């Protein structure tokens, strides 16, 4: 066992809002970094799910975002800080099925109001704060052995 809180990786990635063609690239990067660090496969997949859902939210609604990946011994932390419209009512947004997605997003099979629920369900710890007109800040933590 390593020393507690020993930092194994820290890095940042950018997501461009509105670009569905590149959606998933950041999550794919995160997944391969975690794999290389030897994080167990089921936890890597959990991290991939939460980062992909967050990435799709940025692409669907925000202007841009920075993703900070911090891997310490014992935790994987993924932070997504976007510049966008923000969420007026977080409690409502956390309800499964609630969505503000437009027709174009829905036709692609996104915008079903499941993204934030997936993030919550697949994170061991999840924090969301938002300011209308400024943006949304997500913090997801997955515990590792």
């Amino acid at each position: 066992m390593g020393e507690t809180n020993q930092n194994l990786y820290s890095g940042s990635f950018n997501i461009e809002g509105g670009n569905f063609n590149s959606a998933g690239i950041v999550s794919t990067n995160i997944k391969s970094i975690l794999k290389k660090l030897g994080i167990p496969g089921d936890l890597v997949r959990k991290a991939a799910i939460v980062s992909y859902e967050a990435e799709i939210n940025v692409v669907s609604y925000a202007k841009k975002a920075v993703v900070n990946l911090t891997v310490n011994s014992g935790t994987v932390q993924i932070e997504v800080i976007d510049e966008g419209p923000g969420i007026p009512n977080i409690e409502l947004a956390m309800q499964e099925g609630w969505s503000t997605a437009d027709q174009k997003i829905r036709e692609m099979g996104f915008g079903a109001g499941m993204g934030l629920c997936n993030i919550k369900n697949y994170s061991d710890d999840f924090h969301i704060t938002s300011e209308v007109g400024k943006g949304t800040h997500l913090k997801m933590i997955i515990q590792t052995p």
Partner: protein
Amino acid sequence: MKIEEIVKTLGLEVVCGGDHLGKEVTGGYTGDLLSDVMGNAREGFLWITRQVHQNIVAVASLKELAGIILINSCQPARETTEKAEAEKIPILVSNLPAFELSGKVYNLLTAKSS
């Protein structure tokens, strides 16, 4: 059961990823909502859908799905096949609708394991 056995038995068209049909299929999931598949499909599953855009490849790759079957003879977009080749995700096409195809895949998978 390997993907190639399912391809052969159901007469699926292999659009791309023909070199990766030796993957083992552990189950299946049918759906057109990407977050539903993201949340509920499991590693090694075949995904039955009518979505043809390139984001299906990201979902399949991140979830480590065995492959994707498109229903109703839907053809994938060009960017979808390019990404799928790069990510080694087989994309198959069936002329059946989702309900019938899911039933057939389910029967194959459960018959083999019983």
